[in-house]
């Protein structure tokens, strides 16, 4: 069976080829970083979490088995585990340590007036969604995954993704209206 380019890269990385690993990292690190950022809303913490994700991925690479899902599904799952762990640790920290990291929610920036969302506001907006809604919005409208790719990555049917993305956008519209 013909290997996809990503499968070939994974095999080369599993064989210890650093260039293949670098290529995989460059392909996936922006999305993994944003996945973490949208959930912890602290750029420094998101960088730390992204580091943990990829270091764990390297650690698990020799045992990684391609079961038909894209590599990103595995990486997002590791990221999910890291984020859950982050919040569990954060719950044990004093509240004042966390408050500094929260971005402001002030609406009406120049960027929005120009018809786009600036990064901080986008992060704050997505924080209002459920975890699945955040992911579908990120995959479909920020990372450019197709409906089918998002479905494979999230382990859902395309019909479920259609419904999920629509609900997520409606929820965002309500949040925007409220914030305005």
């Amino acid at each position, binding site marked *: 069976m013909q290997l996809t380019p990503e499968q070939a890269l994974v095999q080369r990385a*599993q*064989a*210890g080829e*650093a260039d293949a*690993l*670098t290529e995989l*990292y460059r392909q996936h*690190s*922006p999305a993994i*970083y944003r996945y973490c*950022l949208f959930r912890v809303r602290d750029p420094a913490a998101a*960088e730390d979490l*992204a*580091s943990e994700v*990829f*270091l*764990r*991925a*390297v*650690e*698990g*690479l*020799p*045992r*990684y088995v*391609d*079961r038909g*899902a894209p590599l990103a*599904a*595995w990486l*997002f*799952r*590791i*990221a*999910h585990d890291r984020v*859950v762990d982050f919040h569990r640790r954060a719950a044990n920290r004093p509240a004042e340590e966390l408050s500094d990291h929260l971005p402001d929610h002030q609406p009406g920036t120049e960027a929005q007036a120009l*018809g*786009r*969302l*600036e*990064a901080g506001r*986008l992060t704050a907006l997505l924080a209002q969604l*459920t*975890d*699945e809604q955040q992911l579908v*919005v990120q995959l*479909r*409208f*920020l990372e450019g995954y197709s*409906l089918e790719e998002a479905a494979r*990555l*999230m*382990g859902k049917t395309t019909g479920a993704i*259609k419904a999920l*993305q*629509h609900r997520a*956008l*409606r929820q965002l*519209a309500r949040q*925007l209206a409220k914030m305005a």
Partner: protein
Amino acid sequence: MNGDEALQKYLEAIESGEQSAGEAFAAAAAAAPEVAEALRLANLLKASDLPQMRPAASAALEARLRRALAQQGARQPAGRVWALPAWAQWLLRPGPVARLALAAVVLVVLMAGAGTRRAVASSLPGTTLYSVKLALEDLQLSLTPAAGRSAVHTRLAETRTGELAALADRPEPASTLLTATAGAALRQADTALEYLEEAPAEAQAGLLGRLVVAASHQQAVLQAVRQRVPAEAQADIDQALEAAEARQAAAAARLEDKRRPGQKENVEAEPTATPEPPAEVTAASEIAAPEHPANAVTAGPPGQTKVPPGQTKVPPGQTLAPPGQTRLPPGRPLKGTSTHVPPGQTRVPPGQTRVPPGQTRVPPGQATKAARTPAAPGGGRP
């Protein structure tokens, strides 16, 4: 058509270029205002500024991952720099059928001409024949009793060190291959140390002396090659150097322990007292033995006197560190370092099972479905 389907239809029309965003929005607004609002928001999201990791942080992580991958190569068992081919993995499985098949393959190799045996023995990491060499080493180990394992692993550590020197002699040595091979040598040295107590008492000091020399040789090679690799690869070489220093210190500390009063007689014993593997394994080992300069297993660094076979006696107050080199790296204590395990390295004591790469443990994120949090991406997969 419900709202979900309608939204997707307009999104696809935009993605395919069939309609502009404005046209799609106008059409949606006429048909279903709620869908039009979702479509407007989708387009707003697509045009948004995406948060990015700081370039410096991203570059640092990238370098860290490369180092982690090189270290990981050093942690894999059996001194393997490259994965064995499928046929070799099948042959090395436990079980009577595989054993018989393996014996047949070994027989064929043993009956092959001297040229073939020499080619296998002198093969270097990155070549096809190298897999055969590793398979034969694995075979030899699988048939070696515990008492002889430390000796075999010591010889393999020396073999890997010889390969490292041969790789370093190339005009443009690949730093990843060098660090992986250095890691494989260190792993063999680790395993040799783990099995040391199983070896006959009279052979232990000799084995330790050889491990000290091998680690020292590695450092000499790595230091020489460090100047010739690109700047970005020097950190990896430095890490390999540090690991080699740590192994040298560990072996030297064990050697010092053996030389304590009441144990000196062990130091003066001949290393050849180590039990030899079964006859057929010895024959197999000849294939992987040092016919190539790269496998000059007992040789020290260039310009350094080779430790003659059987002459492992260490003068009082000295270790077997090569002339001109510090016996122990500065700042490293003599005592208590024998249990030192560098970051990222794992020791498996004799008698315990090493987790084979790839099969029995579940990688992070590939947890069983029952163990997953429902909201985790990927549903029931991968």
